[in-house]
């Protein structure tokens, strides 16, 4: 079935299967920053924005995004680079596989939370798993990026 969506500010028509999830459709159309780390909506790797809100693209049927705005890391490269610089400065990207999903969540948090505390940050990012870094370096990076003491 064909659906019309806006991806990274461009109107796009996607041909998707009725039972296909957004993560699959996006990868099929070349948005390869989308990574899948699980099959149960547990890891946060596939995070994209749907109408500017972070969602797990592995758990949203593509057809349900009809008429909506989808944003991936590819669409916010300048901001993603700026955020990534803080993460890389801490060495907290390590294997990098979970980084795009994490950065999409961090950027959404930046828009949503006003003057977050360390606890707010940990709470907001808790659904983004990482097996490499132990999270501590990522927290240092996010606090610097957001100017949190």
């Amino acid at each position, binding site marked *: 079935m064909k659906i019309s969506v806006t991806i990274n500010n461009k109107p796009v028509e996607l041909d998707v299967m009725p039972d296909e999830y957004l993560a699959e459709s996006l990868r099929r159309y070349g948005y390869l920053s989308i990574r899948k780390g699980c099959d149960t909506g547990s890891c946060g790797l596939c995070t994209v924005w749907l109408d500017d809100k972070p969602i797990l693209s592995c758990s949203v049927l593509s057809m349900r995004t009809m008429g909506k705005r989808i944003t991936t890391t590819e669409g916010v490269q300048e901001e993603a680079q700026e955020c990534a610089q803080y993460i890389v400065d801490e060495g907290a990207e390590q*294997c990098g596989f979970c980084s795009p999903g994490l950065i999409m969540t961090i950027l959404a948090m930046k828009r949503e939370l006003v003057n977050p505390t360390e606890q707010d940050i940990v709470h907001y990012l808790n659904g983004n798993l990482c097996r490499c870094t132990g999270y501590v370096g990522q927290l240092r990076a996010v606090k610097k990026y957001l100017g949190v003491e």
Partner: protein
Amino acid sequence: MRVVNSPVSKIDGMQIATGAPVYTDDLVNNALVIKLLRSPHAFARIKSIDTERAKKVDGVEYIFTYQDVPKKRFTVAGQSYPEPSPYDRLILDEYVRYVGDEVAIVVAKTEKVALKAMKFIKVNYEVLEPVLDFETAMNHSTVVHPEDDLEVNFDIGMQKEKNIVAAYKFEVGDVEEELKNCETVVEETYYSQAQAHAMMETYRAFSYMDHNGRLNVVSSTQVPFHVRRIMARALGIPKSTVRIIKPRIGGGFGGKQTAVMEFFPAFVTWATGKPAKLVYDRKETFSCTNSRHAMRIKVKIGSDKEGNIEAIDIEALSDTGAFGEHASTVFPLVAEKTLPLYNRVKASRFEGQAVYTNKMPGGALRGYGATQGAFAVETAINKLASVLKVDPITLREKNLIKVGEEHPILHGATTKPSALTSSTLDKCIAKGKQLINWDAKYPREIIDDDKVRGLGMAVTMQGSGIANIDTASAEIKLNDDGFYTLLFGATDMGTGCDTILSQMAAEVLDTSMDRIIVNSCDTDFSPYDPGSYASSTTYVTGNAVIKAAEDIRHQIINKGANFLGLAPESTQFEGGIVKSSDGNKEISLNEIAQRLSSSEGQDQLIGKGTFGSETSPPPFIAGFAEVEVDKETGQVDLINYVAVIDCGTLINPKLARIQAEGGLVQGIGMALFEDVIYTDKGKMATNTFMNYKIPSRKDIGNIIVEFEPSYEPTGPFGAKSIGEIVINTPPPAIAHAIYNAVGVYVNSLPITPEKILELGYPQGAYPKL
């Protein structure tokens, strides 16, 4: 040092962090999709298998069963040849040996078609009695590997009719006699669980035939050269027809030191000539690959009244599951990375076996037996301190190995006794003690009627590479415009080895890192390297890179001096310029490179270096835990974790810190909640992140990492390893902290609230000191 010992960012950091399509599944082109039909039984023989109806599904290209594959057994363990793991596998076998073992390979145009076709394959099984409890495997009526074509490269102590894959024994002095004479003996049995790697990128590979008729396999692997050898044996083709390419890897932790699935796409492509890909989903990654070996470890430690440890006796039983990957090599590290710490004993002994069961195979996981050993031996040492009523730090200070002292298995089982050449373990303990505020808080603080905080500690060691076996090479090529290409076969799985090896080359060549292109790994181009495992890359490949850089530096000076009409001895090479000692004449590297690549110079400069070590110098770590236990519920919260590390010189302090923090958190998961659990029918119950819990951001408490660098004389710029040792201390240190809080030693991992409550608080909730 200019570049070495500085916190350089990873050279690939910005690209991978912002979503660059550089991982295996991002590079696939027009490949057929493979799905695997898996066994629902823990042990069964396939009586018949009917694929006719499945083959008729539109879009299905091929279906292969055990009747279609080569009949030569192989191992998928990524180890240097001759592998100490048994050749006990076929691509597909008539017997299926665990729930999830592969039954058929379905190849289709899409995943959806493959999954649909799979439902139409009819398999008639003769269901057999499985071995599910590793403690009864040896005397079980079932033989997990009844076949007579199983091979071993050399004697590993296999008795397959008793399900024993491997056995190993080590003894110095008379342990029985010494233990009899000891005034205090602690004797305990510990259980260390199977742990999942849970790297974020699941296992995946794709393959295609190239223009020369060679098999190309692109794989997310830690061991490309071993995978090449494994593919060649599994398919019965020469190694020269196989090429393995490793792109970026999304984490490995040892899991990808085993070629768990590359042979499926490789077989399909070799058999059909068509490109094929296989991507494991998370369930398959949890339940059809490999995990840390579960073990039972019995420890006896004897000392005099003053706490001088006189004898240590360790007995280990390791559950290797359905296949023997890494079976013979993991469990000896239980002793090899614990006994040398307490080198002053009069006698020590280790005896162990690995046994087959009908469960998912064990394999390599960060720590590789040392982690299991550290939990058992360090907990027993802590217990000894409580029995003797001495501070566990004092007990260790009295007994730990010091620089210059020897131990027979300090560098692994295969080497001669040699001395410890670097250690600041005493300083690590002293600093950690201060950072955790030991003197004020040990053993406990009572918070309220329910909550108590306790402190615990442990020390551990690891190695740096496998002595006398693993040998790595590196090459550095001078390009025609005065920049370099650094080639090696170590595999950066997020660890940052591409960066730190480039730092080392830049240091020797007195250049900046942007003048060095790093390429790893393509078995057609890269010099041989066993791959990244056994804490080897910084130490083994690092030393090879230094040799290669020194080699090409020497060549550059010779060529530059020649162009200047001078003797090499009267020139020097600094900042990309060869100049005369008096400074009057000089020639730039750019000019040297350009003249060498013209008809005038006619020479391609390539520096090479190969390194293998007779020793495996141990890094050390002192870990300190502060936990809060709720006596009512048994809930344990980690409040603080302090780790002070001696990994020799820090090649890159920033990346070393992240390695440490990440490893500690994996260790914390292992201590408190990670557990691979099977049902009574042998099916893995923990095959998603919903039921196998890895630490999240909220589970880790406050983590403090510090370094006390020694200088290892055989190391690259004085460095030792860091990758594995960092996972080892949390299980014993947290177990100790819980004991100090509520008086209960839980001897089986993970230490869940249920286990604490089950033991109760026999000493009225607090241990008497």
